[in-house]
């Protein structure tokens, strides 16, 4: 069955998703022997390139003996043993200088991974090739071969649940009947591969998934908007913004939580003004509770489900909040029970963020815990780092670092980007009433 599947799998992965695939990943995905997987890659590579030249690019793995000249140049001058010449107890223990050591090269087997561009050249450097096979296929020439390592990371993550002691049967790795494995009391979570910039290409699929998820969410929020009637035009951009960065999403959520609690604190009039809608934030607030400390991509999926369940509660909260907002706007004058800081912030914020939206710099928030009214947690921030390089120049680098923060710390990102979704709608109205920030004033002008 795998024989038929492999074309589909490879076409989907390489041609559609534009992600590299190694023989090892292919064998895991289709449950075939690694050596068969190598042949599948070759078959697919030749067939596909016969149809359309240069649609698929390959890397090859060579094993064998390199030419000796290569040895001397590159790898190692090595010492041989000259035991025979040594008589056992020698009076002078003076170590002999290196030059006197007899050079006897040690048999060296080289395993070399090479792109198809350099294949012929590399082949010529071998004196004797033990075997050659395709290591991986990718949609185009890759500049940095290191991206291929993501395939193995994927294996480590996706196939961790398989019994390692049975793998040799399926994949044909060397069997060792003596190895025993203890079943631990708990099964540790599969290793999480931290999302790194380099990982991007491989995570394309994940990204797609993410997008799907956010797409769903968007749909959800749109429909909410519809039900609530108005402000659909605004909801468009809002949801877009959400989908473009995950970290934003999260921030939105966490902020939303705050809003919500505030809203609840002041249950005022019940009648809801629909014009104020367009705040999907509360909806997502609810999802926020599902967030675990370490953000995994996987976490996104369940959120969609959450949506529906909590929609009702969220809606209620939203209505309350809208109501409150409307009241606030209607009487220009400050209300006796002044709005909580955050609320004001959020009103100002929309435009601020629009002007200076810096979600990238702010990074993502790992987790926020609210304890006794204190916020604590971890967030990822871009920090400028000055390093002196070998030449003595100062180099400034931006690096993502985790830092923990608490209430006392200034909270640069949280207030602003959070407020965004809510405020875009709100902000305009508020601006109309003259409550907006300076930015809003300018905008009007």
């Amino acid at each position, binding site marked *: 069955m795998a024989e038929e599947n492999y074309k589909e799998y490879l076409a989907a992965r390489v041609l559609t998703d534009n992600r590299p695939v190694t023989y090892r990943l292919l064998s895991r995905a289709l449950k075939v022997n690694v050596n068969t997987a190598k042949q599948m890659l070759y078959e697919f590579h030749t067939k596909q390139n016969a149809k359309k030249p240069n649609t698929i690019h390959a890397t090859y793995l060579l094993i064998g003996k390199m030419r000796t000249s290569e040895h001397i140049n590159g790898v190692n001058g090595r*010492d041989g043993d000259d035991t025979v010449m040594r008589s056992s107890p020698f009076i002078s223990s003076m170590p002999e200088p290196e030059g006197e050591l007899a050079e006897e090269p040690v048999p060296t087997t080289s395993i070399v991974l090479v792109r198809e561009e350099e294949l012929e050249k590399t082949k010529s450097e071998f004196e004797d090739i033990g075997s050659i096979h395709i290591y991986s296929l990718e949609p185009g020439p890759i500049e940095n071969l290191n991206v291929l390592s993501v395939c193995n990371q994927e294996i480590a993550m996706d196939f961790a649940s398989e019994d390692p002691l049975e793998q040799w049967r399926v994949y044909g790795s060397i069997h060792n009947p003596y190895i025993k494995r203890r079943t631990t009391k708990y099964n540790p979570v599969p290793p999480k591969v931290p999302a790194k910039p380099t990982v991007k290409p491989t995570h394309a699929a994940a990204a797609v998934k993410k997008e799907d998820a956010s797409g769903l969410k968007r749909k959800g929020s749109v429909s909410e908007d519809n039900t609530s009637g108005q402000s659909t035009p605004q909801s468009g951009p809002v949801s877009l913004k959400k989908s473009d960065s995950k970290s934003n999403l999260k921030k939105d959520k966490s902020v939303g939580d705050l809003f919500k609690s505030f809203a609840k604190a002041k249950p005022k009039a019940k009648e809801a003004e629909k014009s104020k809608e367009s705040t999907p934030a509360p909806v997502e607030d609810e999802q926020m509770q599902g967030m675990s400390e370490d953000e995994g991509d996987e976490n996104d999926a369940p959120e969609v489900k959450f949506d529906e369940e909590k929609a009702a509660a969220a809606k209620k909260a939203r209505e309350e909040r809208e109501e409150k907002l409307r009241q606030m706007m209607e009487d220009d004058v400050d209300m006796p029970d002044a709005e909580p800081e955050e609320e004001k912030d959020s009103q100002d914020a929309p435009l601020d963020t629009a002007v200076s939206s810096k979600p990238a710099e702010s990074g993502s928030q790992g987790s926020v815990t609210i304890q006794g009214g204190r916020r604590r947690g971890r967030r990822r921030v871009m920090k400028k780092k000055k390093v002196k390089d070998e030449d003595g120049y100062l180099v400034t680098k931006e690096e993502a670092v985790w830092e923990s923060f608490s209430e006392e710390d200034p909270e640069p990102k949280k207030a602003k980007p959070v407020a965004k979704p809510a405020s875009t709608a709100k902000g305009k109205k508020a601006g109309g009433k003259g409550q907006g920030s300076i930015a809003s004033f300018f905008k009007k002008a």
Partner: protein
Amino acid sequence: MIPKDGSMLIGEPFKDPTSVPSRNASSYKPLHTFALPKGAEKHYQQQYADMYFLRLALLKKAVIQKAHEAWDDFELGGEKATYVERVLDVRQGELCWVVGTVYMEMNLKPNVLDDISKEHWIVAPPPRETYVNSSGADDMMLEDESGRLRVIGETLNSTYVTGCILAALGTEQADGSFQVIATQFADLPRQPQRWEREDSDRTTVTKTKREKSGKVAIVSGLGITGTEDDDLTLDLLLEYLTGEATGPTDQSNAAQITRLIVAGDSLSHASPILSREDFATKKNQKKHVYGYDASAYNATPAEKLDSFLTQVLPTMPITILPGASDPANVALPQQPLHPALFPHSRSFANPPALSNETLHGLDSVTNPWEGDIEGWRVLGTGGQTVEDLLKYVEDVHPIEVMEMMLRWRCIAPTAPDTLWCYPFQDDDPLLLRECPHIYLAGNMKKFGRRVIEGPAGQKVLLVAVPKFRETGQIVLVDLESMEVELVECGVVQPGV
């Protein structure tokens, strides 16, 4: 040029994959020579002086015996050489020989007193590449319980280091220094027979038939940093060891490997004591965080190592030694890496109470480590001892240093002078009691190997294992023929 079954560049119809032979069992019997007492039994109040005393007391006999053999008939100008028991009893102008511990007085050597006064310095000097003073102002002393004697002589240059036990033949000069003509040292101790421990365990006299031994693979300096640039060669190594990469012939060759030894420095920046550079970077990014700062710890390298081990372990048992940059104690002997570092791979080890008897799985051991593999006594280190000794001498190859350490019967002669070391009190396991058959030192700059012979016909294979991260090389030792070969993993980067 490519053998018939070597080319996997064939398409449909897919031929059935040839089955690769299973690995043989690795006959493995670790010794726990270097395990320190646990918990409250471990004390650090002892004086290091006891170590030197112990070393001299234990080795003196062997050195004296060697010196008697060599110098009893020795005559110079009609004068017979006599043995003087205490270095301070040497008479001027008298041909004699003494036994003592070498102490090197070197200006560039780190000094405890300097360390203390360092607090008053504006800038501390960089760590030394070598302790040798180019102007040649270094002094060598011979020391025993009675006192010290300054020794000079051509034969001494660049040959001895602090801590080795030596017999020196010569005369005292007018200025009080001892002019050395010749030296003797303990040389290789007794070497056990192959399978000695296994055979002694058996009650029956009948010899069991043993299978032909396979190979042992040795890798050191994986240097996992957590960034991507080291991943691919590591993947190639992994796939080679598990027998997934390459064609059937080479896969069968890989199946002959019955054990992997990881000789230190698996992680690159994990030492509990930060290097100067690490410390500087850390200091600069100081933040106002109270208590434990979780964000400062990067778990990625440890996770990667764990994942590597987990994928190799189903096909091959592993012995892992800590190294200078690993998260273990820094003083020799380094104790085994903690199983908490291996959340996944530790399921291949015995449960904690018995984990040091894991014969077919992950064995996290001490550095240095001693044990029997396929009946051969193997002594392995993470390379710190060699690295430190090289700072005392110039133009000496690591493999020669390794040879001298065995001949001096000191695995770490420079400890505790310039190498951190546990203050042993009653017994010093860092003295060589039994001569190994294979002596490994990890994390060397270059590969090297040599076979040395001892006075009683002992044969020792010395292997300097290069850093994998820098060379991509691992060493295979055939345990039947003692032949050494290298496997090199590499990537041809585009445009090269």
